[in-house]
């Protein structure tokens, strides 16, 4: 049976790991390599590492750091941050990374997704779409943002997700900016609306406050990637830093329960 994926998302800022709230107030939570080692021990499904400085500072990805992460990582690794060209994507894959995530560069230039897909294969391209509810008293629906939510893009997020898929993305990550670090649960309505439009795997990020939220997302969507930051780096109400992840048995039970509850066939 193919299992839904439960994926820690690690944010890199000034060389360290951080956790943000609504993309702001980065709090240092430790050393990236050390975190990867712990997730190795816990046989984690997959890891997403996003460098949140590279795009806003307009600098090259930190290849040295990526290489060290890849060398340590015994599970599939997805790297994102500052990737703008096929050559950069090539170089990252050559370091031992499975997937390259694009965000700002892809959503502003969809042709880039296809160019990179032809080089590294569709299966290795992930597009992360940062979404939040439209601002203002009369705001309705959602808007897409880039550059750590510093810029707003005048596009329909649902059409954009489809466009990214058609352009050659092998996976779409929906990142709910307004829920980042808030423990308020995934935006299930948003997840459902996006999933209806996709045939590539979808991963949802932003808002998970407990494994119960992960379970709910899986119950709703079946085969889905449940990505989260806070719950895998903090423990308890005081948010003490503690890298954690469910055991294999806990994960299997959680997935089985969620798939049964959602009436999803075991594929």
């Amino acid at each position, binding site marked *: *049976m*193919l299992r839904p994926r439960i994926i820690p998302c690690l944010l890199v800022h000034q060389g360290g790991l951080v956790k943000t709230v609504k993309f702001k107030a980065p709090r240092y939570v430790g050393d990236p390599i050390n975190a990867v080692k712990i997730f190795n021990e816990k046989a984690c499904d997959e890891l997403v590492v996003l460098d949140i400085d590279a795009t806003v500072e307009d600098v090259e990805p930190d290849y040295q750091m990526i290489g060290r992460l890849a060398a340590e990582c015994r599970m599939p690794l997805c790297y994102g941050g500052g990737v703008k060209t096929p050559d950069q994507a090539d170089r990252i894959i*050559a370091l031992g990374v499975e997937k390259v995530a694009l965000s700002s560069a892809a959503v502003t230039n969809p042709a880039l997704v296809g160019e990179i897909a032809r080089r590294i294969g569709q299966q*290795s391209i992930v597009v992360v779409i940062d979404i939040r509810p439209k601002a203002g008293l009369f705001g309705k629906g959602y808007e897409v943002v880039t550059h750590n939510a510093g810029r707003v893009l005048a596009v329909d997020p649902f059409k954009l997700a489809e466009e990214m898929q058609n352009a050659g993305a092998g996976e779409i990550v929906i990142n709910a900016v307004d829920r980042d670090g808030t423990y308020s649960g995934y935006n299930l309505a948003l997840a459902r609306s996006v999933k209806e439009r996709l045939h590539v*795997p979808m991963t949802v990020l932003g808002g998970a406050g407990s494994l119960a939220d992960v379970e709910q997302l899986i119950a709703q969507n079946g085969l889905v990637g449940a990505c989260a930051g806070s719950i895998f780096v903090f423990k308890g109400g005081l948010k003490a830093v503690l890298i954690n992840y469910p055991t294999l048995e806990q994960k299997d039970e959680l997935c089985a329960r969620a798939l049964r509850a959602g009436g999803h066939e075991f594929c």
Partner: protein
Amino acid sequence: MIRIVDYGLGNVQAFLNVYKRLGIPAQRAAVAADLDGARHVILPGVGSFDYAMECFSASGMREPLERLVADGDTRILGICVGMQMLADSSDEGALPGLGWIPGKVKQFQDDALPMPHMGWNDVVPAQSTGLLEEADAGLRFYFLHSYYFACTDPSNAIAHTRYGISFDCAVRRGQVFGVQFHPEKSHGWGGALLRNFASI
């Protein structure tokens, strides 16, 4: 010494990293001479079938590897697209495959399932070959692909996985092996497979 064929595609570094951790000597093979006297060869691959075949054919390592296959003393393990290249042909491309294991690479047809087939799935051994640890009932590996290997001769299928349909996720003919999944990124299950391969 395990040789990892580097023809420009595939995650060579990931294999070197695993073998380094396992304490098993491994090195990159980038030119024909690097394959001299090889006993164990890994043929990785990602991306599209034709592009992979073109790159491999242009690498100068295809002929020496074909000779090693014909001699029958060298163990070869194709991974992902490197496994698909062992077949006669692929629905994904127009170029012929290497034809080392009779079979055809087909596309998944189930519209109800997300494509590519991405994530952790069960691997059920169909016969004992020493590559998979059959004693372990709970084998699982990381998959990432939209096309699958269909053996012409079912006796070449050494393990199966289910994704809508049951497909041949591991194959073997003589000393040539192939796996669709990614042992290099499959925690202890993958490490065990790569260690087993080194001792076959």
